[in-house]
């Protein structure tokens, strides 16, 4: 990996993307192209890491790409699906609550339990997008309590045998 060539791109100037070279026909910056170029650079560096240098410092910061460019690129294609899902889950939950309790849709809006259900539905749709996500979430919970268990083990056998001798 040592002999691999340095990353080069005509638009990469002095440690950042020269935005003037990303203009599309209208003269505005084509942010999609910037995202593509940065993804390419990062991928390149992952495959062949480069020495960091203080003279030739990287100053590019992803936050200069405006938020709507990210939303347009990554969220909108997904949003249609999520909205649809949330609406369907929401509708059926409201339907079942109504049929089981007789509380109508309008009354449900003022009910704490129903608001909680709504929140759970939205959070669920956002968090579980694919089936694997359930496993990942489970793993995350295990992981986040693992360290606590490692620390607490000193005290575990303690409680029944407090003043034992």
């Amino acid at each position, binding site marked *: *990996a*040592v002999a691999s060539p340095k990353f080069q791109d005509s638009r990469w100037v002095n440690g950042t993307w020269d935005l003037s070279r990303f203009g599309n026909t209208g003269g505005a910056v084509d942010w999609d192209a910037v*995202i*593509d170029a*940065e*993804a*390419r*650079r*990062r*991928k*390149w*560096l*992952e*495959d062949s*890491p*480069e*020495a*960091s*240098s*203080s003279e030739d*410092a*990287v*100053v*590019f*910061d*992803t*936050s200069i*790409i405006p*938020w709507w460019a*990210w939303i347009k*690129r*990554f969220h909108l294609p997904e949003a249609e699906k999520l909205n649809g899902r949330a609406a369907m889950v929401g509708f059926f939950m409201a339907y079942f609550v109504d049929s089981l309790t007789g509380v109508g849709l309008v009354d449900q809006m003022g009910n704490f339990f129903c608001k909680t259900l709504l929140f759970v539905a939205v959070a669920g749709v956002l968090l579980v997008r694919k089936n694997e996500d359930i496993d990942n979430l489970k793993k995350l919970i295990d*992981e*986040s309590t693992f*360290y*606590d268990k*490692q*620390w607490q*083990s*000193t005290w575990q*056998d*303690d409680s029944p045998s*407090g*003043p034992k*001798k």
Partner: protein
Amino acid sequence: ASRGALAAATMTSLSSSAAAARATFLPSSCRARPAGGRRSQLLVTRAAASSPKLPGGRKLRVAVVGGGPAGGAAAEALAKGGVETVLIERKMDNCKPCGGAIPLCMVSEFDLPLDLVDRRVTKMKMISPSNVAVDIGRTLAPHEYIGMVRREVLDDFLRTRAQKAGAEVLNGLFLRYEAPKERNGTYTVHYNHYDSSNGKVGGEKRSFEVDAIVGADGANSRVAKDMGAGDYEYAIAFQERVKIPDDKMRYYEERAEMYVGDDVSPDFYGWVFPKCDHVAVGTGTVTHKADIKKFQAATRLRAKDKIEGGKIIRVEAHPIPEHPRPKRVSGRVTLVGDAAGYVTKCSGEGIYFAAKSGRMCAEAIVAGSANGTRLVDESDLRKYLAEFDRLYWPTYKVLDILQKVFYRSNAAREAFVEMCADDYVQRMTFDSYLYKRVVPGNPIEDIKLAVNTIGSLVRATALRREMGKLTL
């Protein structure tokens, strides 16, 4: 006064007149107790009253195994508290492979002379996988710095001070201990005595009796093995000491570098730390220990421009505990420092916690024994554990979360470096590192930080997804 009389081999039958003469027995209710709530004070009183007074007015005897920061600090506090203390260290000039960074508060808390600090790091450079570099330390006040010490110097200083306080320091290798047969009996410590004066190689086997043992013998602790403390997960740290040309050394005069990325370590970071006249280049990992050489090469490559032409003067590797051992106390034997497993995640810091745990353990023994006049029991040692966990558990937990969130992938690491560019983050990080206190932040800043961090994470993850689609 009678510390010299502690002839190592024949400690079993000690003269006790001198000890009795300076016995300063205080009623347990008015013993000074450092920090701690009302509950712990009540416990202290009860335990000391229940433990028997030592026969013949002799003093409590404690063996401290290991002469690092933990052992040194423990021995000093024990000796000062009127306990007869023996410290065993196998190699007096051991220079342990260790980053050697100490927080500012350690200098004042442990009264360290300033010339112990070789270098004062005021600039930390964090370098992301895509080589974005962020200087941390802009928010430091002029008097604030991270001290870099040489372990052989620090350890020796603490040991010498313990000796001056009255502890006996032995050069020897701890072999094993025997638990007492009867209830309030003594522990027998077996060790290999090294004596450089008679020129004999290998040392001779000796043993002595003590009332309690403090295991401060590091990651490969033999005390922990003997007491059945159980194992911990450990990281392997690999480090090369590189002597670099003077003009390159100037860059590292007050600067340390941290490299993150899958190339340098899948779960930790690679570092370049300045030492007295050279730099230490290293990396560590828990999950991929077999690949450590590869990670080291990657770290060297990433720092290449700055350490080029350097000569490797020393190569070291050492295990670093990831979490405390399942058992940290058994009877009158307890563990402190690395032996117990007090190393933080994320930053891998351990010197301060080692010294602190050693001192806290010693203070618990001194309090529980009423300045060495009574026998201690497990409940006294547990008080030190409870206090340590209470004080430092939040710090350990926060660093564990940080490591889990930000060291999990290159995308997260990019976000981490972006986050570290923020002045507020830097101030909070340094405050908690340098002074070891958790300062409540500013709620508005906290929310801003949370939003920014999530933004960074989302952007980095989005880019990551694009990268997955690419073939170069």
